């Protein structure tokens, strides 16, 4: 019983980071209807910005974390402006291809500037808490707290603010929203800013819990991707649900089946769900298949 509880909590921790990364994916998909392959690489860049500020620049971790979110938000807006906006009217394949290319370029830039070796935040020795049968480190507690705080923040933003309303309007129908006087480009830029900032948060938290390497972006892309589709493309809450499911199932599977299949288990679940419900758990069925 103790082990099951511990695995569940570990799954919650991993799931929290996946969910944070998946939100940006889902929001971009909602607004522009394309999958931004570069999203994981943006999270990776965010993690490295925090690393440079903290470990090389000597800035304390919390300001470094927040500064990294801000700078990564800027990067996301810049990528959208330079690489995606000119292609908005082109076939979807063009945006997809470009996002793959952006991810190539971002990974390679970090590799050239900071090297391909594995880095670590080298946080001071961590205290371990015991809550009932479950052990948690300080970083893990922060991960859970942060992911829930950001998700509630996002919920309030989307539900109660004018910007949130505009984001939802654009996800519904870009053209109609623009006709109603919403500045589409501005809102899309905001979507990229929010998504990238949350991705940076996910990247930094993953970096603190494990370590940093330039290829980590791909892992984040793959997991977030699976989370988004599992929950239903374009549905932010579905993405969060998908992130947690994948985190939990992975950790249970790694223990009860075998750790070598940890990454595959998530996909098996994903494929099974898509087989039964092609639009994902919370998606609208008509989006996934023609007919």
């Amino acid at each position: 019983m103790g082990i099951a509880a511990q695995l569940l909590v570990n799954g919650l921790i991993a799931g929290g980071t996946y969910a944070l990364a998946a939100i940006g994916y889902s929001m971009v998909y909602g607004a522009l209807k394309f999958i931004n392959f570069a999203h994981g690489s943006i999270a990776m860049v965010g993690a490295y910005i925090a690393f440079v500020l903290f470990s090389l620049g000597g800035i304390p971790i919390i300001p470094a974390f927040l500064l990294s979110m801000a700078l990564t938000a800027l990067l996301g807006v810049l990528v959208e402006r330079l690489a995606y906006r000119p292609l908005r009217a082109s076939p979807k394949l063009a945006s997809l291809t470009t996002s793959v290319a952006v991810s190539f370029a971002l990974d390679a830039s970090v590799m050239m500037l900071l090297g391909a070796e594995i880095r670590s935040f080298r946080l001071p020795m961590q205290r371990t808490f015991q809550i009932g049968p479950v052990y948690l480190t300080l970083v893990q507690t922060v991960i859970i707290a942060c992911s829930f705080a950001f998700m509630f923040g996002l919920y309030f933003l989307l539900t109660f603010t004018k910007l949130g309303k505009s984001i939802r309007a654009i996800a519904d129908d870009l053209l109609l929203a623009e006709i109603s006087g919403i500045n589409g480009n501005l809102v899309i830029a905001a979507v990229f800013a929010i998504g990238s900032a949350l991705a940076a948060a996910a990247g930094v938290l993953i970096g603190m819990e494990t370590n940093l390497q330039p290829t980590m972006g791909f892992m984040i892309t793959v997991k977030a991707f699976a989370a988004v589709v599992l929950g239903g493309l374009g549905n932010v809450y579905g993405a969060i649900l998908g992130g947690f499911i994948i985190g939990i199932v992975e950790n249970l599977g790694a223990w009860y089946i075998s750790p070598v299949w940890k990454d595959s288990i998530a996909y098996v679940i994903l494929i099974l769900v898509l087989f039964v419900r092609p639009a994902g758990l919370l998606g609208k069925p008509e989006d996934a298949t023609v007919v």
Partner: protein
Amino acid sequence: MFASYGLIVHLLVIIAIYGILSLSLNLVLGVTGLFSIAHAAFYGVGAYTSALLTMRGIPWVVAMPAGMVLAGIVAYIIGIPTVRLVGDYLAVVTLGLGEIARAVFRNWISVTRGPMGLPGIPSASIFGFTFGTAEQYLVLAAICLLVVYVICQRLLSSPFGRVLKAIREDQRATLALGKNVDRFKMWSFVIGAAMAGLAGSLFAHYIGFIDPSSFVMWLTFFLFLIIVLGGLGNNLGTVLATVVFVAAREGLRFVGLPDWINPAALQQFVFGMLLVVMTLFKPEGLIPARKVTYRRYRQRVEG
């Protein structure tokens, strides 16, 4: 001069193998518009099947087609739940399947020897004639490339290929014309996978060693770049882009770089930027595929 004779022959063999691979992905992605990321996995299935069979004494003429058939069967099984999905969903599922395939290559140690890889794969041979030297292998690979090219060209102008192109342009309209869209997509997927399996077999028996790292997803993205640059759906463009890219990739290794630049990273950076610039400024590729336009159609009809 670094460009020795042996190196050029080696480059040409690699170009031929990648040419087959790019043509096969072009059929699936460029012609039919199926955004499949699992392509490297089919390449791997072909390579492993062919290598494992020949290592157990089965001749290459049998092992190679077996690799193609198995790659096709795997594609068919994968296709059952996936071909009815559109664009992005297909991309995600095939991404996942590609990773599962790699996990199988890596973890099914009793058969694939996992990360240690398979060394000592025998050379390809047909009825007692062994393609032992690089030159002989080049002939074999070139013949295979030619056959695949001709098949792909024929497919494009056949009624079957026209349906595939119609699916790429508008799936609903094709459906409305009474075509069984899912079945056509499935065949495109299976044929493409079988061709990738052929390329995998050629690769395994040429290098003589395979391990899971030969079939990573980056390979699919590299092919992606090739067919986008060659002009989606254009076979000749695909082959030419393969030549340029493989030559550029190998060539970058010989450029004198300062120590602090990681050559692999530089290569990846250059390719990434190139792809962004291409899609922004010349999305139809270097050699655009000829589209049937109303004007051209009228010219043909009216003579």
